[in-house]
């Protein structure tokens, strides 16, 4: 067994354990911390795949932004109230199973497709996880999806602004943090 495979197995095991921790722990803050661990191990895996830019973006966006936002929300609404009302709705189980199946199918499809041998595109992508390669790909080949996502983010930003305006005076810190995302 090569060292890189051993390393992958170790990091993957931590990642899986953290993912399990997210759904099993009853304390929301602990869940958030497990989520953070999961994101960090994913970043490590990206680095082993030579995708340094993706790894850095993973840490900046997820660890530096989203998990902090989650913690912020938990602290503001009080983390100790374990509210399971979402799990008691009749349809939530069905929807969960359906979404899980779709995810499983998609993942297994993409894994099976890769088994046949890496396509030319992936080979090219593997060469360039560097910021330059990602930037060039984003602004040439994928410029339309890129611009569409920018538009989507703008809409979300304006939505957050509108929501924040309605509760003016309720507290200055909260709307501003929303606008940040």
């Amino acid at each position, binding site marked *: 067994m090569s060292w890189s495979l051993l390393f992958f197995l170790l990091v993957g095991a931590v990642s899986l354990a953290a993912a399990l921790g997210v759904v099993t722990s009853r*304390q929301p*803050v*602990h869940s958030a*911390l497990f989520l*953070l661990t999961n994101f960090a191990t994913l970043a490590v895996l990206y680095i082993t795949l030579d995708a*340094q*830019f993706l*790894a*850095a*973006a993973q*840490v*900046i966006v997820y*660890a*530096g*932004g989203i998990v*902090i936002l989650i*913690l*912020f929300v938990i*602290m*503001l609404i009080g*983390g100790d109230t374990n509210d399971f009302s979402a799990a008691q709705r009749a349809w939530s189980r069905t929807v969960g199973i359906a979404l899980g199946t779709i995810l499983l199918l998609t993942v297994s499809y993409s894994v099976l497709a890769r088994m046949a041998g890496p396509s030319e595109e992936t080979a090219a992508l593997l060469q360039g996880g*560097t*910021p330059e390669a990602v930037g060039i790909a984003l602004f040439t080949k994928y410029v339309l999806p890129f611009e569409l996502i920018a538009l989507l983010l703008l809409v979300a930003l304006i939505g957050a602004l509108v929501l924040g305006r309605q509760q003016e005076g309720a507290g*200055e*810190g909260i709307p*501003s*943090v929303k606008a*940040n995302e």
Partner: protein
Amino acid sequence: MDWLQLLVFPAIRALILIFVLLTGFAYLTWFERKLLARFQVRYGPNRAGKFGLLQPAADAVKAFFKEEIIPNHVDKPVYLLAPALALVPALIIWAVIPIAKGTPAIADVNIGFLWILAVAGIESYGIILAGWSSNNNYSLLGALRSSAQMVSYELPLGLFLVSILILAGSFSLVDLVEGFRPWWEWIWLWLAFPFFFICILAETNRSPFDLPETENELVAGFQTEYGGMKFALFFIAEYVNMISTSAIMATLFFGGWKGPFAEQYIWLGPIYLLIKVVVLLFLFIWVRASIGRPRYDQLMKFCWQFMLPLSLAYVSVSAVLAVFLK
């Protein structure tokens, strides 16, 4: 050989770096106490050793032998994790800072700038988790303040970093220092330095922006429930952060290890970097001694209504300059 290159040499470098940083922390506390005393026309520590130079050692012994107290009402795993999470980012941010010609502290990666942004992003975890796990209203308030403050000031900070990156044209900090910069670029950079320094003050929770730990309204905020070595870890984190951010500012704005003859004699590089870092640390302490703390809403308003538009404008002008003059 692969082993040595990949694991052993970086590990040795990292150990030396940590040793240097922790020693630097110890003498930074001495430096700060001496300077603050001089600003206030006092003597400062002068009993332990010549000029009080043994004071940090005495403080360390005291912290080690304090009784370890864990209050009953805390969330124990998170409570114990928080001080470590506070210290780690302050240490690992050093990995990409060049300390001499062609020599980064640990590794010359092609995402040096992003590394700094990423580590700055996770810096607030220690404080947030400490405040939450303490299960104490004052601590929680301190943690909320700090997370809002750090997340907000990260934006202008990141935008200033992006501007420097646009002008430098490379993600590597080693290339940034070694590359040639025309005179107008230096002037343009130095124009941004005061604002960058204000953001750094807010990011490191240093006075006058030490609102997460205001002792007169929040009884030390997130640190209230911590004692002994665990408190000392927060203390170390704050001071190592000062050193790290000073090194980053020296690298970005003042040429890092560069100085007369540093190209020929490599060992001069770290000495020049040290001199620049000490001057910037002096600035930190000078500000602490001279300026009072703003109110919390003033702090946030300043960030969102002044710093953010300013940094956005700075990015735009930098991009124009990079396109037309480079």
